[in-house]
């Protein structure tokens, strides 16, 4: 078993994640202060990937809570499986003790991160999908590091305070009490230099020529006015993957302004039409 991580352990980046120093510093501060880190930024700036990278670098298990709009806080904490209990009491062929409700309590994602014997990374993804009450209540739980299971009147306390990363895509700000309990960082869209580093990590064998021209074309296409969803890092990586797998593709096509696989970059039909239109006028 992995030894307990000391709180002073430093995070320096993962194998598939290019980290800028500023963010590393913020992650380390948050871990030291034992505060959840709230990450905002446009889609595709690597908010979710960061949690994966932290888990990998510090050799901790990652628990992901994907927030859904219909979600109630208790779902994230634990679930009392009445159906199985009813079933067991009817047929009685399981190992569980029907008279012991605790056997039928299943931990939710936050619950799991509390009862884990090792320190884990808890990623709460897209918190903005849930309503504000959920958000505030959840932060209370994360602040106290404990919650009650009403059915068995038992308090679950965190064995190890998990490293908590929360992501939000929202343009709007989250509520004040929520923000008060988090550290905050906004990940800006990577500059072209950073983007080249990111691509280098994903495509170690990429040719200089292809990298240069795809990045250039990509940033040009991000500037098209009027698109609803700009292509992000994820789209760029998929696009390069598509280009690389096409035997007929030549880098000089890009220079001529002939951009294949636009659909990989622009996924909404009005955006696609607009991009198709603008691309024909674009020259690198």
């Amino acid at each position: 078993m992995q030894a307990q991580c000391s709180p002073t352990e430093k995070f320096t980046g993962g194998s598939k994640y290019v980290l800028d120093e500023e963010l590393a510093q913020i992650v380390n501060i948050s871990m030291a202060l034992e505060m959840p880190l709230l990450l905002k930024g446009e889609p595709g700036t690597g908010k979710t990937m960061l949690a994966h990278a932290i888990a990998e670098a510090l050799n901790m298990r990652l628990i992901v809570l994907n927030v859904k709009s219909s979600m109630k806080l208790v779902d994230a904490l634990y679930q009392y499986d009445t159906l199985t209990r009813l079933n067991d009491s009817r047929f009685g062929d399981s190992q569980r003790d029907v008279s012991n409700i605790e056997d039928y309590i299943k931990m939710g994602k936050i619950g799991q991160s509390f009862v884990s014997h090792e320190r884990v990374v808890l990623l709460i993804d897209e918190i903005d999908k849930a309503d504000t009450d959920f958000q505030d209540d959840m932060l209370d739980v994360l602040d106290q590091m404990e919650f009650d299971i009403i059915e068995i009147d038992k308090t679950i306390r965190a064995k190890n305070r998990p490293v908590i990363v929360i992501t939000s895509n929202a343009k709007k700000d989250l509520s004040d009490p929520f923000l008060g309990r988090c550290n905050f960082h906004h990940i800006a869209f990577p500059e072209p230099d950073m983007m080249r580093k990111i691509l280098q990590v994903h495509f170690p064998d990429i040719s200089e020529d292809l990298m240069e021209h795809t990045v250039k074309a990509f940033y040009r296409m991000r500037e098209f006015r009027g698109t609803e969803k700009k292509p992000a890092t994820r789209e760029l990586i998929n696009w390069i993957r598509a280009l690389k797998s096409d035997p007929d593709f030549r880098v000089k096509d890009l220079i001529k302004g002939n951009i294949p696989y636009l659909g990989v970059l622009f996924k909404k039909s009005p955006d696609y039409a607009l991009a198709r239109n603008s691309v024909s006028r674009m020259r690198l």
Partner: protein
Amino acid sequence: MFIDFFYLLRQVGIPVSPTSFLRFQKALGMGLITSLDDFYTAARSVLVKSERYFDLYDQVFAHHFEGAELKDPEEFELTEVAAAMLQEWLKDPKGFADALGIDPESLSKLSPDALLQYFLDRLKEQKGEHHGGSKWIGTGGTSPVGHSGYHPGGMRVGGVSRNKSAVKVAMDRRYRDYSQEGPLSQAQIGEALKKLRNMIPVGPKDQVNIDETIYQTMKNAGEIEIVFDRSLKDRLKVILAIDNGGWSMDPYVGVVQTLFNHSRAQFKELKTFFFHNTIYDNLWEDPPRFKKPVKVDELTRLDPETRFVIVGDASMAPYELMATDGSIHIEERSMKPSYERLRSIAETFPHSVWLNPKLADEWPYTRTIGMIREIFPMFELTIDGLDSAVSHLMGRN
């Protein structure tokens, strides 16, 4: 420690809570922060909770710590001034070049970086004459000459380089783009609608809520307690007039339509009209502006309490607004210039606003925007702009 810094942040309007300041003290006490760079990032992540304040934070940080680390303030000032010059040049290349006596042709061939360097060199040369050069830069041209490919607001000066000191990074103001919200997009519609919800009824409380009255009376042990609700008939009437004509509004029509389609249920009555560029004799009820014209004169018969919201970029040729036969559509040439029409609408409906999808910093470059702003209070079609527009509509003016 750093109490001044804390109060300065609060003073400029960044909501920094004392708790987070104490937490930051804890971080300092733990020996986590060993350099000014650490201080910059750590303080920002602990104290500042929205990217909208990042730009302000950068400015405060640069201001507060300028003396502490700044080696060569003069160089700095020059960079800033040169950057400002570049911005100015992008807005109005010709006018600016004329003002400086530089050849605009040769300048337009330079890349932005080269241009910045050029300005910087020039400033250094001329330091004696033009000390504190910020004055002769802010002349703000009005010539509408555009420059191919560059957009004034979209230009970012400087980049991220990790070799810079924190002060320099702060001086870069990388987050300037986030400090103002862009034009309303589909993704923000939900948020925008919430802003519209502030348009709540303000009628008198004159309707008896029977269920609540019975409940409260029971609770009062039989002592009668009558509960009144606000009457519903005072829900707002809204007229929405949308500029849906011409390519100049094309990028915004989708967003605007979504906004009003969703807001339909919001009000007691919502009338939607369409126009092209500006309003003449008629508004139209049908989007192609063909079948169902409505005389503007007839609007005067409507309740003056109606909120009149115009959405348009207010950008057109000045004669369309000012001339008596300004309409580009031949069939609606009466003797009243559109300017008069707009004025009479504004007089009929004291609660009126003009929402402009163009961002406010582009407004000074279009003459008709200025003229229309004399008639209607104008707000950006952004979340923040919508917020101010709604509070303006609900205010007693």
